[in-house]
């Protein structure tokens, strides 16, 4: 049976890293990932099968969908970290509202207030400064995350960092929305 064939990647290979021929890890060669993604797409993309039969077109769409999803996750540091934690049996999204350190939450409140103020004043300069501040904080968290995930393999500690990054990401999304309101 086909299920028993060792070549059946889609069924047996659930790991996004392996799909692109990469070692699982937070540190990642972005160039290699992009190169592998493009090489695979060049062979399986629906544009390669536009004139083929239904079965092949469907298989191509399913595969490309899967490859796009894997690429999306590995390309984003936060999603990649969450995914690594998942591979190691830790769900970073759980307990989102608990166990956040008080100083972090205070800082979040400050940032959020700054956002509301910039929005009320319709001040794009203030939004830009806020974005820069957010980027800095998120960079700091990301380097700490690399340390916890790759060197120490301290997954609970990494999960805490991921939760912080998810907070910052949400704020970043709100920042985008604020920019958009000003554009409209």
């Amino acid at each position, binding site marked *: 049976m086909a299920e028993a064939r060792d070549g059946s990647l889609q069924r047996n290979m659930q790991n996004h890293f392996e799909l692109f021929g990469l070692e699982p890890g937070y540190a990642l060669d972005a160039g290699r990932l992009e190169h592998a993604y493009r090489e695979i797409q060049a062979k399986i993309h629906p544009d390669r099968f*536009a004139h083929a039969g239904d079965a092949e077109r469907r298989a191509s769409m399913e595969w490309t969908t899967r490859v796009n999803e894997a690429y999306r996750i590995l390309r984003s540091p936060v999603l990649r970290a969450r995914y690594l934690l998942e591979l190691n049996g830790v769900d970073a999204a759980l307990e989102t509202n608990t166990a956040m350190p008080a100083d972090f939450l205070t800082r979040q409140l400050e940032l959020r207030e700054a956002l509301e103020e910039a929005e009320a004043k319709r001040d794009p300069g203030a939004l830009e400064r806020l974005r820069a501040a957010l980027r800095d904080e998120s960079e700091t968290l990301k380097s700490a995350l690399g340390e916890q995930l790759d060197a120490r393999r301290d997954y609970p500690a990494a999960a805490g960092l991921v939760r912080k990054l998810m907070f910052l990401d949400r704020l970043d999304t709100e920042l985008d929305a604020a920019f958009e309101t000003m554009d409209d």
Partner: protein
Amino acid sequence: MALLQISEPGQSPAPHQERRAVGIDLGTTNSLVATMRSGVATILPDTQGRPLLPSIVRYLPDSRVEVGYVAQAHQTEDPKNTIVSVKRFMGRGRKDVPYIENQPYDFVDAPGMLQLCTVAGTKSPVEISAEILKVLRARAEISLGGELTGAVITVPAYFDDAQRQATKDAATLAGIHVLRLLNEPTAAAIAYGLENAAEGVYAVFDLGGGTFDISILKLSRGVFEVLATNGNAALGGDDFDQRLVCWALEEAKLPPLEARDMRLLHVKAREAKETLTAHGEAPLTARLSSGEFVDVSLSTETFCRITQHLVQKTIGPTRKALRDAGLDVDDIKGVVMVGGATRMPHIQRAVRDLFRRDPLNNLDPDKVVALGAAMQANVLAGNQPTGGDWLLLDVIPLSLGIETMGGLVERIIPRNSTIPTARAQEFTTFKDGQTAMSFHAVQGERELVSDCRSLARFELRGIPPMTAGAARVLVTFQVDADGLLSITAKEKSTGVEASIVVKPSYGLTDAEIERMLRDSFEHARDDVQARVLQENRVDGERLADAVRVALNRDGELISSAQRADIERLLAALQSMLPGSNHRAIKQAADALNRATEEFASLRMDANVRKALAGRRIADLER
């Protein structure tokens, strides 16, 4: 540019006859058809050598239909039956069309999409667009000497699901096999990128007759990757004309006029606007049916002043696209201008000011989309591309979501996701013993359902009775390479499986398409049966071809028993093809398709492995 050197998984290894494939730019104002000739993308002109086909359709009382220049010549005398800019109505309801009161037509608000009352009966925008496509198809078939294998049809990147589906339906109605719906700015990027061997990040600024798109693309080693797109599907040259008409009425101190005079003023306003591209001043004169004259003079300054708010409307979407791409204007290597409306000087100025560089105007903004579509059609049809190979990675322009409690939208697929894509979300029951759940899919960026476009409502029934919160209903949104959505809902907590697949509901049903086909054939003295037979034959031949190639290349992936099975069904299909039983051909093709599913999946596996193996060798060589 160093293009990808890749083997073609689906391509026939043996050289064979070129497949007839075309690219069609179905524009608001003008439409074009193009094809590859001796390795060069070429616009196919009409018998009088004119490349454009005005997107104008006139219905006559004797059931005749005029399309293009003939219709254009009569537009001011018969505005109600002469439909211009029908693209603005595709997939739209009455309330979606801005300033609909200025339109001369009698509208009927049908569910999902409005319709127009004409002397030839009620017509859907899909039928009207199909008339334009039929003319282009005939032009291409005469020029290429036979039936088309298929066409790439371009759509504005910012078209939503309803507008895309309507466009695809129009092509089906015109008897065109759609190889792909391709975003207009992406088509332009292919033409520009291949012509100029461009590498780097480019913006395509596409302002057409009725739609505005801004796309940010990364061009690198034969890959065209759309990083972000934005736009306004109801902003284009038409709006500038409309503004001019209003201005001329104010200047001449006239009240709103009857339909014929309004259309006349529109034509004159467009002429004045076009004159201003090369001159500082343009006359706008018209003799109205009342005998009164409109005689005003339009200066560039006035034109810019009264339409500045329209120019401004392109800026917000452009900033959003840049932000979504995570880029700054300084990261953009060039801005490619597409669409006739980009000829307006204040548009050029606005783009120059925003991007702090001169926009690229070295391509014909009317033709570049059709040329790019022809290049892509050639590749999709399986012909050997000239000058290497390339790959397109495009995105979905608007977020897709589902309605949750309180009329809020839960986003499932965010805008600018690379397609094809799929995302799933789990929902549960909130009452004990609940056996059905209803869902509402929407598209748009706003938080409230009422501010988004409704795509589909559907119900999942047959959920086994359980306590509240125990059911696990997985709703999956799948967007295909045309940017079209389908939705699956599946209850997965119990062995009993309730599942449903829906396509959004505003498109035409198969029955409607069949009725429209029948209507059109009555007049064309053609025969639906013959048409279906022909289509099934073409599909069957394509499938047989593809399976033969697959067996030759990758036959070792399956057992000899599986191979024998496929070969038997292939032979069965082949024996049916010359016959005249369209049902038998369809059944044989379906059977072969089913039998090759496993094989297709294994071939995809093998392709991924080959891609990685190639890469590892490349790594070693580095």
